């Protein structure tokens, strides 16, 4: 039965990676097979679902969904383009900064969906290729999302699975390394792409002449939604003091947002991406099957043997292994499978270093390939629809070096401060 559960899970991962079938269908079919074959019993299957993760995701989807139509994010992206004054290096750094910050405090997929369309417009006005800018944004979104508990799905899953790790812990332990990585990676990309981003000063003047604030409609609504968004982020910082789980903070924020900014509740709730939530449900049940069959413990034992029980070696194997796994499949299912492995690996003694290694590996690994993170798939999809296709190989040529450099920085950081 253990072998069967592994076959189901690995087949699902492979199908998710090749994208022949929608990932949610694959995850739900895998979950159904786990239950129907008896790899996991029905009670354990239900218990395996991490409702806190689903609540956190749903809450943030509502909050962001109601903030986005106010035009605040378009304003932000446009302002940074204006601030760059047509200097390609400045443009790359400012777009990377705004994408990284939005990713950290919204989530990386949302950040990409907000900044990429306006970037296409900016590139159109400047008459430059949007591809280098969008690639920078994809990579920045995955690096920026690493900095917080809510920035990237792997962190959301880790944060809700391990209540010992607070929102502030994520910021203190991951934000510094994410910032350094963002600066180094963006600097490298700016140098690589600078010749493709030369801007005619007259075009830069066209951008400067735009009235960025003109699209911020309904000023009172902008004020209300931003107050709730900022209030929710502050509450995330204070959630340990308030004795509130991150999911409770997100759902409370979503409720307040619905009360103050939703004219039509039905339409507001349509912003919840149900396919994503069901994808998570399928994954949790499949991983529950692996746990029940002892596969997770076996992998943890194998890892412990491989590393000779050294926590430093374990941390580095988790970091690089998670990055490799996330690059090959998708960092969400990979993290779902790795969370119980890391729990089992550390035994009864809680070691946050291993969790930071997992977060850094899964999030940074999301930059390696086009399919490694949902943000990459979404952004390259938008480029494709706009007649600017990016091939798998072209993404790889940028993504792999960036991931390697990121992991080297993460390795240094873990060795110096965590392991």
């Amino acid at each position, binding site marked *: 039965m253990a072998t069967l559960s592994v076959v189901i899970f690995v087949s699902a991962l492979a199908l998710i990676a090749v994208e022949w079938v929608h990932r949610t269908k694959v995850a739900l079919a895998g979950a159904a097979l786990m239950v129907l074959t008896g790899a996991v019993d029905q009670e354990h299957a239900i218990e395996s679902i991490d409702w806190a993760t689903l609540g956190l995701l749903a809450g943030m989807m509502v909050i962001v969904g109601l903030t986005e139509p106010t*035009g605040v994010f378009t304003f932000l992206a446009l302002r940074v383009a204006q601030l760059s004054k047509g200097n390609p290096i400045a443009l790359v750094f400012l777009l990377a900064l705004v994408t990284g910050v939005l990713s950290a405090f919204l989530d990386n997929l949302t950040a990409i969906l907000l900044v990429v369309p306006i970037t*296409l*417009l900016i590139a*159109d006005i400047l008459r430059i290729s949007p591809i280098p800018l969008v690639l920078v944004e994809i990579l920045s979104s995955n690096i920026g999302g690493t900095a917080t508990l809510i920035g990237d799905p792997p962190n959301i899953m880790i944060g809700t699975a391990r209540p010992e790790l607070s929102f502030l812990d994520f910021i203190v332990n991951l934000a510094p390394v994410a910032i350094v990585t963002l600066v180094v990676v963006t600097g490298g990309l700016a140098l690589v792409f600078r010749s493709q981003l030369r801007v005619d000063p007259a075009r830069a003047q066209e951008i400067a002449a735009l009235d960025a604030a003109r699209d911020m409609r309904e000023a009172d609504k902008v004020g209300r939604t931003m107050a709730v968004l900022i209030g929710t982020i502050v509450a995330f910082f204070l959630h340990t003091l308030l004795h509130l789980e991150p999911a409770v903070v997100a759902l409370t924020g979503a409720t307040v947002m619905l009360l103050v900014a939703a004219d039509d509740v039905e339409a507001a709730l349509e912003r919840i991406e149900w396919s994503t939530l069901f994808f998570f449900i399928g994954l949790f049940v499949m991983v529950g099957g692996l746990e029940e069959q002892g596969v997770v413990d076996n992998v943890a034992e194998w890892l412990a043997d491989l590393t000779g029980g050294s926590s430093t070696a374990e941390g580095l194997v988790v970091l690089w292994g998670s990055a490799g796994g996330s690059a090959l499949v998708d960092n969400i299912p990979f993290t779902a499978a790795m969370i119980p492995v890391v729990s089992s690996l550390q035994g009864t003694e809680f070691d946050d270093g291993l969790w930071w290694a997992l977060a850094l590996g899964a999030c940074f690994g999301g930059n390696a390939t086009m399919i490694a993170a949902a943000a990459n798939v979404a952004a390259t999809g938008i480029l494709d629809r*706009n007649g600017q296709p990016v091939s798998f190989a072209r993404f790889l040529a940028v993504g792999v070096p960036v991931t390697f450099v990121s992991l080297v920085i993460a390795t240094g950081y873990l060795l110096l401060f965590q392991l």
Partner: protein
Amino acid sequence: MPRLRDLPLVDASIPDSATFADAVARLFEARVPALAVTSADGRLVGVVSELDVLRAVFPRYLAELRHTAFLEDDLAGLDERADAVRDRPVAELARSVAVLDGGESATHAAERFLHTGEQALPVVEGGRVLGMLSIAALCHARFDRVER
């Protein structure tokens, strides 16, 4: 009970060998929101709507931007863009949509319009395109009937 074949269908078809520019001109003349694209033997290949040509002539990302009021002037590359697509074959834009049968009822057509979001649908019978039925034509025919 009148059937769809009895309604004022518009002869708004275009051969699949025509260009985007031909399609836009035909849409403009025919005053229907969509054209039936047909093969050389008169079979339906798909439809091309006003929205389809809008998406082809203007950047696709506009649909993903919620607001563009800050753009007081046109984007500089619009003419070049239009010039680049005007001679492309309309078959590239043809989409499969719900097809109405000439023997079906107006109520069924109304339900199809509501659920597909299309503004005009092809009415076929025996594999032959009878014409395009628009929402306006469907409702206009109903008012006409009431007045009579």
